């Protein structure tokens, strides 16, 4: 009767968290101490070390949501729903970081809070859409919550490339946003990306673990 939660959710929790915290600490130190202060923008430029990794984490998160949603529709196994919803939730947090850090950077770089820069605009659209995912998920009756969420997870993601492309076209080819860095800056950026990705995975796993515990509790009640 013991409904244990899947092993991969509990294995070496402390190690993963320790690794995440160490990496994040190291990257923050690198940002403050190692990365040089950029000539034109000054210290504010360093926002990029949280902005870019957060963007990557967001995309990984929403990609996970999509993949897990498909897996749920194919198998109807609860774990995929747990993964999809958890990834989306954590992704929303990182998306918010992107949307807050972006304007802060823009204010300093271009003297304006919002510039309709294509990628940032697309992030805003994604943020609203996946916010909608959570609202729908919270509103739907228990029995169909997983199915409806999965359908939404699939539908929203498949439309993203079109949205991205059209926002790019709409904006015209301005502000090429390729971040070319060398030396210390590049190293700091790479370290930051690794650190925040590991951190994302750690948080994401915790979140799925929470869902698994909830599911296990329901199983126990079911057996009563």
């Amino acid at each position, binding site marked *: 009767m013991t409904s244990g939660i899947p092993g991969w959710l509990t294995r070496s929790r402390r190690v993963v968290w320790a690794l995440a915290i160490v990496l994040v600490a190291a990257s923050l130190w690198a940002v403050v101490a190692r990365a040089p202060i950029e000539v034109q923008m000054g210290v504010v430029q360093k926002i990029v070390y949280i902005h870019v990794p957060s963007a990557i984490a967001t995309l990984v998160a929403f990609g996970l949501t999509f993949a897990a949603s498909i897996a749920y529709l194919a198998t109807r196994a609860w774990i995929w729903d747990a993964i999809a919803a958890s990834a989306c939730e954590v992704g929303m947090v990182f998306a918010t970081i992107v949307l807050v850090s972006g304007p802060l950077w823009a204010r300093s770089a271009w003297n304006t809070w919002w510039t309709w820069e294509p990628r940032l605009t697309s992030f805003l659209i994604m943020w609203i859409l996946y916010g909608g995912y959570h609202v729908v998920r919270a509103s739907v009756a228990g029995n169909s919550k997983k199915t409806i969420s999965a359908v*939404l997870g699939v539908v929203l993601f498949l439309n993203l490339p*079109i949205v991205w492309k059209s926002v790019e076209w709409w904006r015209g080819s301005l502000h090429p946003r390729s971040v070319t860095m060398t030396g210390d800056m590049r190293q700091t950026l790479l370290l930051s990306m690794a650190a925040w990705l590991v951190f994302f995975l750690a948080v994401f796993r915790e979140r799925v673990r929470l869902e698994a515990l909830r599911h296990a509790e329901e199983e126990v009640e079911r057996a009563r």
Partner: protein
Amino acid sequence: MTALRVLAKDLKLHARDARFLATLALFSLSLVLILSVAFGPLFRDPAREASATLWAALFFAGVLGLTRALDLESESGGGEALRLTGADPFSVYAGKATANFLLMAALWVLLLPCAAVFFDVGTLEVLPEVAVVAALALIGYAAWGTLFAALARGLKARELLLSILLFPTLIPLWIGAVKLTRSLWAEGSIDAVRDWVKIMVVVDVLGIALAAWLYETIQEAEE
């Protein structure tokens, strides 16, 4: 055949609800009015402002039409009975989406002359092309709108949820419709913005493809 029967049924139901149709018409007209006032009284780029006004009004009023179509199915369980006939889900979707498209098209026919008159734009010459652009946009709106509406059926804040999901998703469609219409009204051709037609077609096709894949799943989900 199923699709046609569902279409006929939906159109009949809408036609008999004069009160709702009148409300929808008035609502969309008031949207056009508000936006015209916001842009006016002197219009700096009439073609653009008219186009934006027209499409904003259509998008918002459209949500009400979509929700109403949804309610007609769930009110007394007609939709459940439809499901229980064993009718092919995609055919049902096609019928409903077409009905929604026609309702939107009727709204467009109402609002187009208003926008043209208020902003003093548009000629009969470009009307066919403007209509084609509208058809492209409204097909996508109906396709995605019917899909999302089915997802949101039975939920309390249906209109709000539908808007939250539909509008961001259809941004490509919206931009395309506004740009193409504006271009036709201002320049009489779409040469400069021709590419947007492609994006709109892709959006339309994707919406229909997703419905073909997932509509049955949505339909069978418990309310």
